């Protein structure tokens, strides 16, 4: 019996430990500036202006240097037991999802106003985007390479850290060799910055932003100043966030009867079941709480990438 309990306790400890040891997912993406300056973009009409949107698929299919750089970075990260997610596979999955979305346009089509980067990050469910760019500079017969690798939190798009520099000038070395040299030389500093970020994330959670809006003339007849037991709805939301954020960390830079913006909201990295939480999941928990007695407020949750969600109160 004693042995049975001991085994059970050990299994439980192992289960809890396995819930804690999920690693953040990382993916390398060529930066917008690299894609555009190398011609890998498509032009899209957006509200009367033409915007250049990076075309990752074309870049992967046509640029050998990019494939080499991604392979090298993957090799170096795998050496530190941190293999990267494949951009190529993600782009394929994204195309599949777009096809499915096109079939259900009325449900999803107009709601998801996301950039290609947001779309890729959400499809890959990655936590950190490694944005890569490089440029070959010629100095007469010599050439050198300027290289930037920047890590961005996929949730907030905030920069975590970057490694950059210009390599030594060379007469003979091939561009691919110079690129490989630059990646190898800059990797340790870059990894140190990633490590600092991971330590911060483990201590004070993941950062997201949350907007609460109200449908005009909604059927539920609520706004953020509606009182429940003498307490305004915005204060009720504040109290919920106080309890459900890590160390009660968030700020509310703006609030009115129709809108409340919450920024620097630190959410737990994983829920009690060990599943990763994103802004969507966190917003849905709040929406569920407001839907229950005594508030009975229906709401709609909109996703804006991994790190931003909007809850619109009053109607579904």
């Amino acid at each position, binding site marked *: 019996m004693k042995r049975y309990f001991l085994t059970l306790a050990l299994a439980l400890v192992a289960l809890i430990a396995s819930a*804690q*040891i*999920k*690693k*953040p997912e990382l993916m390398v993406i060529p930066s917008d500036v690299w894609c555009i300056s190398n011609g890998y973009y498509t032009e899209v009409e957006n509200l009367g202006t033409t915007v250049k949107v990076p075309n990752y698929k074309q870049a992967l299919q046509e640029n050998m240097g990019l494939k080499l750089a991604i392979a090298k970075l993957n090799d*170096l990260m795998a*050496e*530190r*037991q*941190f293999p990267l997610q494949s951009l190529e596979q993600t782009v394929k999955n994204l195309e599949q999802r777009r096809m499915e979305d096109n079939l259900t346009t009325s449900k999803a089509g107009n709601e998801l106003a996301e950039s290609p980067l947001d779309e890729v990050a959400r499809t890959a469910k990655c936590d950190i985007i490694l944005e890569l760019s490089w440029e070959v500079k010629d100095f007469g017969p010599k050439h*050198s390479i300027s290289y930037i690798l920047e890590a961005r939190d996929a949730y907030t798009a905030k920069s975590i850290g970057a*490694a950059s*520099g*210009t*390599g*030594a*000038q060379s007469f003979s070395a091939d561009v691919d060799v110079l690129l490989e*040299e630059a990646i*190898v*030389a*800059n990797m*340790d*500093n870059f*990894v*140190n910055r*990633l*490590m600092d970020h*991971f*330590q911060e994330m*483990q201590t004070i959670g993941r950062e997201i932003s949350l907007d609460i809006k109200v449908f005009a003339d909604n059927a539920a007849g609520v706004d953020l100043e509606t009182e429940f037991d003498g307490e305004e709805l915005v204060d009720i939301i504040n109290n919920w966030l106080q309890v459900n954020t890590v160390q009660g960390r968030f700020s509310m830079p703006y609030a009115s009867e129709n809108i409340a913006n919450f920024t620097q909201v630190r959410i737990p990295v994983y829920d009690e079941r060990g599943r990763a939480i994103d802004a969507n999941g966190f917003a849905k928990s709040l929406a569920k709480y407001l839907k229950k007695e005594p508030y009975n407020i229906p709401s709609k949750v909109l996703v804006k990438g991994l790190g931003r969600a909007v809850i619109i109160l009053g109607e579904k």
Partner: protein
Amino acid sequence: MWRNNIVKPYMFMKKFLLSLLVVALCVPASAGLRQKQANKDTENFRYEIECGGNAIQGTYLVKVWTYSKKASVAENQCRKNAVHGVIFKGYGGGQGCVSQRPMVNTPGAETQFKEYFDSFFADGGEFQKYASIIGGTTESVKVGREYKVGCTVSVRKDDLRKALEAAGIVRGLNSGF
């Protein structure tokens, strides 16, 4: 008379052998002292480390300048200083080189893990596994009463980091997950 003739060379021989013995004892003692001083200099960061060029994957190429009254002692100390510098000092970049921060950057780690590092940096210690002098790169300058010896050393930093991670001195990227 005949007795003086025998004793004199004998005394001379005795004195000569005694002096030889003293010299024989003093030379290793002074070499030992110089080595001890060199080790002390390493502990006190009395060396210079700079980037020695672009290295192949898994290694750093560093140029280390070591001081000693004897050039050979300084040359021997180059490898130790290179590994010590990569662990505790880091180095600056420039001219195509990338600066690197020290592997161990927790304040007080040197004293916290003193026992480990004493044995690691002991003469003939484990540090030797991670460094090798690039042949033909040694240069020596006489500065005052001592020599300043520069060597380019290749440090196997990936293996070194793994050893430090295994000893619990530095955290790995995946630690805590």
